[in-house]
């Protein structure tokens, strides 16, 4: 048996062994919905938007801040952006809202625009309303050091 053939045989053995071991190990993985991948998802909790309240602090530096108020029925469409009706630089003083950060004025090539970049138009792609939602899985996540 030359070296080539031996390596080939060994590789074949390894592959066979892995394929035999893998399904067994896959079944032992338990996700939030259980061990079976095809199991139906757990019902969502009865999360209710909470009324206006103080904003929950950020957990890491780049985190989009949460929305500390209800957004039910807010129109964000091609015609109108309800968020920008209060949070735009031209409106925030009258409405008392937080003005959008300057990071939203850059286009994808890094060029500065005079208003919100189209790629930041749909606010709720990143910013979500605050909910009283507990973590689904217990974890040891710690707030970033600079934010503690």
């Amino acid at each position, binding site marked *: 048996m030359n070296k080539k053939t031996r390596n080939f045989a060994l590789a074949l053995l390894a592959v066979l062994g892995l394929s035999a071991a893998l399904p067994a190990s896959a079944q032992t993985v338990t996700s939030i919905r259980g061990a079976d991948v095809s199991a139906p998802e757990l019902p969502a909790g009865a999360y209710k938007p909470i*009324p*206006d*309240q103080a904003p929950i602090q950020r957990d890491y530096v780049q985190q989009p801040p949460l929305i500390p*108020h*209800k957004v*039910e*029925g807010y*129109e964000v*469409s*091609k*015609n*109108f*952006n309800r968020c*920008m*009706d209060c949070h*735009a630089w*031209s409106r925030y003083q009258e*409405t*008392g809202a937080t003005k959008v950060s300057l990071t939203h004025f850059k286009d994808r090539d890094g060029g500065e625009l*005079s*208003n*919100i970049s*189209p790629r930041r*138009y749909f606010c709720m792609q990143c910013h979500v309303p605050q909910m009283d939602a507990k973590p689904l899985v217990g974890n040891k996540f710690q707030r970033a050091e600079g934010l503690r």
Partner: protein
Amino acid sequence: MSDNNKGLRQRLRNMGWSAIVLLFAAGVVFWGGFNWALEATNTERFCISCHEMEVNVFKEYRNTIHYQNRTGVRATCPDCHVPKEWGPKMIRKIKASREVYGKIMGTIDTPEKFAAERQRLAENEWRRMKANNSQECRNCHNYEYFDYSVQGRRSNQMHQAGLAAGQTCIDCHKGIAHSLPPVAQDIGAGRDAVAPDVFHPPQPAQSQ
């Protein structure tokens, strides 16, 4: 002529009370019929019997709080778009005959045509509600009865400031039951849009 009149009067006198009762009954029937017909055109079912209303504004309205809410109180089309008082209601109804013309000519009979006309139509309605101090809102939401202690932080502040400055509901609450026409917000490409001073009318105190 005078002979005829005399004859009529005499005949009336002859008939006496029965004539009065008959005329009164005829009046009741006529008035009742008129009112019935008027009310028949004052229902949601009548409004959405035109597809222009059903496929555009009605669909949008179904996603809003005035259609769907936890307590099941609903404000239907005429609650907001037709005044409750008799005089203004008659005026609105007569003006609405223009809408029949629009229906026949097919002014907004496709979604594209409707989208093109939306700004004009919306501004008509905003102007009407501004002129009557948002009467249709206040038929249910009387701001003198507001309990600010149970309003949210934002509504509490904005309502008190706005109402003190003499603003009316529609000055801020546009597009609450239907989608808005394009509004100039200086985001993205320029377009035919509602001007900022139409969308946020200057406060009366400032404009004086």
